[in-house]
């Protein structure tokens, strides 16, 4: 999916609390009521149970593919694991535990299998991962689910209906209540996920892993978490689906069903919960609807239609139905109101203290540098990108880093922030050696950075980006996040307050819900700086912030930088090409060329040095030099 193609926004709210209660009550009461009328016949109730199971499975795939961007062409293997586990736990010849225990076991088993698949996913990209997931789907269908212990061979696994006391849910309409309740619960959990730091972290990982790491997201851990969550939900779907039929065999979890699930999720719109659930119901009910209209001769054509629909949708709308709907909505909004006026480009960054969720930064002895980099070497194949570079940044200063293109400045930045591992050298942050720490861990110690090509999650709104940037400031657990109980309420309130204050300071309130990708480059840069500062890091690394800005805007930027140093008391390391800006704000200046640091010292003096001028202009230095 291209970054700016569709403006996907995370919904600010799902069903309000009373809404979920209404949904649960409806789910519980409506089916049995309708079941006693001819409106809901037994076979139709069974079909709807099946649709509910598939909808839950679709939500699970949406978590993995839509939120976290991990491709999975074998999701039904996780669903199957859930179904068979339920059978093993609740079966009359097996463990005979209550049905709910079976559902929990199904979720656990699904999560476990997904985790096992996720581990290789950390090292494999896109298409390789796709092939591995296909292979897993085949192993499930043809091998694992046919082992007699697990799946009963071709006899299948019997999954008894749940019972309460002596009364069992054997009537399909009654069981449908249970299935719908499960769907509502899963829906709400998904809503909570998306509103929590976990959902935001998934979106960040999907958009750009480096950016996510710079916001403190442990990319590997979150990928695994996405797999585990997806597997758990799929397992629940399997429990619901399997119990509806009472007996399941390996053939109920074929590879083509996994493909169908991909169809459903893509057509519904990756990332859109409602679209995905609607597509699931549509796909399951369509065959019977067609047969009802055209008679049973049409059997088989429904699959043809499904598949044709997929191919068409992918070709025209890579973002699926929900994407098309969102696009239409955007068009309408744009037609209605014009563009809001541009916000002031000189933001008033709020002075926020350290967030309560983050530890206080290390106390630094007077005189010690905030950042101390020694002897960094980075080699890419035959090219020495960074050659024995060293620099130090003192507290409360703005240090500049200049050099011609290809000098290795951004590479050095990456080595400092942990985005790449240098071949040798040492990085110390606030007195602590961080050379072995990954990027997200360094972010936790108090480093914020921006990127040359704007390090934001372009598909999300400005507000969401500000929340993502505070990933580390809201350290609540998964349980709290999914249920919105406990620590998450406290932390979410805090980071939203901070985000509100930052928005105000930036003057971007009107743009709060605008996808970042739709702002102008200069506006994006300002948002990016806001995000870099929102957790009050000690050290901020800015990579060519003035690139693409007009001279007037660059002046405003200079003022902003000075504010950061003087008003907020932060330390800044700045890569820049704009010499007047550099001379205006920096307290110290380093110059790199061909990977080496060739000069450092007082800015005005450094820029006039012959070796610096040669590095930029290439020939004999101009006599008069550049004056501030």
């Amino acid at each position, binding site marked *: 999916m291209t970054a700016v193609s569709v403006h996907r926004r995370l919904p600010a709210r799902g069903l309000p609390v009373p809404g979920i209660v209404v949904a649960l009550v409806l789910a519980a009461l409506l089916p049995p009521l309708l079941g006693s009328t001819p409106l809901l016949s037994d076979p139709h109730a069974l079909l709807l149970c099946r649709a509910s199971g598939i909808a839950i499975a679709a939500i699970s795939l949406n978590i993995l593919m839509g939120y976290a961007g991990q491709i999975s062409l074998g999701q039904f293997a996780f669903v199957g694991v859930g179904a068979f586990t339920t059978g093993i736990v609740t079966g009359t010849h097996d463990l005979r535990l209550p049905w709910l225990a079976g559902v929990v076991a199904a979720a656990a088993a699904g999560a476990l299998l997904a985790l096992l698949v996720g581990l290789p996913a950390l090292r494999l990209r896109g298409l390789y991962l796709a092939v591995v997931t296909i292979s897993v789907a085949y192993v499930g269908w043809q091998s694992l689910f046919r082992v*007699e212990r697990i799946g009963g*061979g071709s*006899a299948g696994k019997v999954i008894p209906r749940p019972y309460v006391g002596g009364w069992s849910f054997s009537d399909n309409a009654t069981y449908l209540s249970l299935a719908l309740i499960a769907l509502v619960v899963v829906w709400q959990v998904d809503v909570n996920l998306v509103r929590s730091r976990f959902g935001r972290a998934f979106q960040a990982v999907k958009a750009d892993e480096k950016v996510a790491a710079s916001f403190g997201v442990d990319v590997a851990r979150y990928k695994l978490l996405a797999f585990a969550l997806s597997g758990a939900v799929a397992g629940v779907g399997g429990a619901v689906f399997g119990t509806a039929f009472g007996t399941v*065999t390996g053939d109920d979890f074929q590879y083509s069903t996994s493909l169908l699930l991909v169809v459903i999720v893509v057509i519904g719109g990756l990332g859109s919960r409602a679209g995905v659930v609607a597509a699931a119901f549509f796909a399951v009910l369509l065959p019977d609807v067609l047969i009802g209209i055209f008679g049973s001769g049409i059997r088989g054509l429904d699959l043809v239609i499904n598949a044709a629909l997929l191919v068409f949708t992918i070709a025209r709308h890579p973002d699926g139905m929900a994407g098309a709907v969102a696009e239409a909505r955007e068009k309408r909004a744009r037609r209605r109101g014009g563009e809001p006026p541009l916000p002031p480009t000189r933001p008033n960054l709020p002075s926020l203290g350290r967030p309560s969720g983050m530890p206080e930064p290390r106390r630094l002895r007077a005189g010690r540098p905030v950042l101390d980099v020694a002897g960094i070497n980075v080699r890419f194949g035959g090219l020495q990108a960074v050659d024995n570079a060293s620099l130090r940044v003192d507290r409360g200063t703005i240090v500049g880093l200049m050099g011609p293109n290809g000098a290795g400045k951004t590479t050095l930045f990456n080595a400092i922030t942990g985005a790449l591992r240098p071949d040798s050298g040492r990085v110390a942050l606030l007195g602590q050696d961080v050379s072995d720490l990954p990027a997200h861990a360094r972010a936790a110690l108090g480093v914020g950075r921006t990127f040359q090509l704007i390090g934001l999650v372009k598909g999300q709104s400005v507000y969401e980006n500000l929340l993502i940037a505070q990933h580390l400031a809201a350290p609540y657990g998964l349980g709290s996040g999914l249920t919105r109980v406990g620590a998450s309420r406290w932390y979410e309130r805090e980071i939203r307050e901070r985000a509100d204050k930052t928005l105000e300071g930036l003057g971007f309130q009107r743009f709060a819900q605008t996808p970042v990708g739709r702002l102008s480059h200069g506006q994006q840069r300002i948002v990016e700086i806001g995000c870099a500062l929102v957790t009050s890091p000690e050290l901020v690394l800015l990579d060519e912030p003035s690139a693409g800005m007009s001279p007037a805007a660059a002046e405003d930027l200079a003022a902003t930088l000075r504010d950061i140093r003087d008003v907020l008391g932060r330390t800044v390391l700045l890569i820049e090409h704009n010499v007047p800006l550099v001379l205006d704000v920096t307290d110290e200046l380093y110059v790199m060329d061909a990977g080496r640091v060739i000069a450092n010292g007082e800015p005005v003096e450094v820029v006039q040095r012959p070796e610096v001028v040669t590095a930029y202009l290439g020939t004999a230095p101009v006599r008069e030099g550049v004056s501030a």
Partner: protein
Amino acid sequence: MPTRHRPGRSSAVAVLAALALSTVAACSSAPAPAALEQNGGTSNGAVPGASGAPGAAGTTGTTGTTGTGGTTAAGASGPGAGTAPGTAGTAGGTGSSRVGTTGGSTANGGSAPRGGGGPAVAAPRSTLFTAAEDRIGITPSSITLCVHAALTYAQAFGTKDTDFNVFWQALNTEKGGILGRKVNVTYENDNYTPTDAVTAATKCKAKNPFMLLGGIGFDQIPAVRNYVEQNHMFYLHHTATINGTAGQKYSFTELPTVERVGEAFAQLAGAKYKGAKVGIIERDSANWSPGVQAFKRIAPRYGIKVVKDNKVAQNKGNYTQDILDMKSAGADVVWIWLNALESTQLLKQAKAQDFNPHWLLFPFNLTSQTLGSDAMNPPLDGVAMYPAYSKGDYAGTFSSYAADMKEFEAQYRKYDPNADLSGIGGDLLFLNWVGQKALAVQLAQCGKDCTRNRMVDVLESYKGQAPSRSSCPLDFSGDGHRGSVDVNFMTTYRSPSGKINWRNTSACVGP
């Protein structure tokens, strides 16, 4: 589990008998279309010609033992009734091998409907169904039946869905149904998987049928049995395991169990290949393995040694490794405990590997015709719960039920001339037809005031009779739910038309 083991002594039964039991039991089958492994059906053999003097005269019941008796007569209602079943004793269920013996039962069936009706009806013995459930699916003018079967595979046998309904069509058209009730039968595809079988059963339930009939499917039937138990349907199904049926009340079968069939294969191997080294290639399933366990249990009796036992997954496709395993284990006899399509595939591959032991398998013309002369090299052996069929061949072991074959062919000529009875699906259609005929006989025996409970009584009153000449005797006096232990032994032969078909060598073989 019902505890009625009434010998036909009481007057109530006599009356019932008068109404019902005319013909005799047989290994009748569940009227199941699309039989893949076996079909229920009839076994020829029994029939035997009338002999049995029409009983008339009450001997009802006499003859102590197992009643058979009783029935008597005439009455016959319904098609096929015909003469009274044997009177006098004999018959009846004595043990095994009722081959040929007339034993009483049997009535030649013949179709002549005999009028009859009988005296006033008494209350049914069975209390399985509540008053509300008792009359579902049956009205004075119609009986509704619903069948779940593997329609998906109809084409593999060269047939169409509609080929399986000819018997009922003829019955409704020519005789106005059974006792004035038209028989409406619908079919739901169970796709040969347990999950879809449950869906099919659910769809059938929505049509409120009098009976749910279960077609071939060792794996599907147990799943549906669970379903009908919870939903109180009247289920008459094809062969399935007895294992797992403890406590189940709503399922009945007129065919031998899986365990019994497994035993029968051992019997056949023992009879023909005493002392042989046997290899087994079996379906990996909890519903198939009881057959193998039964085989292994009685194999020592015949000096048979199982030298290799390979489990294979359903539709494995490539059996080369298993064939080579059998070869290297030195098996002279190989028992293929898989369905007809899988068996055919396996045999093709075995021939390609030049491996020619004696083969034991489910006998279907699909297999023998597909293999052609390979199926004679050596001739294949089979155990079945249905009669053999070879179009136009009424000689030899076909003669005892040739009349049924001719009636079958006549009906198809009239109502479904495009069906290829001499092709790979001919025997499937015949065994399906025979099963439907047996059921029709039993529905007739249920009488004018037929209800589900009365139908249960009809089934349970069979103690050694066969419903038609192509069927084997039934005996429900055991647990009241499983009525047969008889199988047919078959072998391949070159039919007069040149095609390689199967024919009976022994009919209605008991344990």
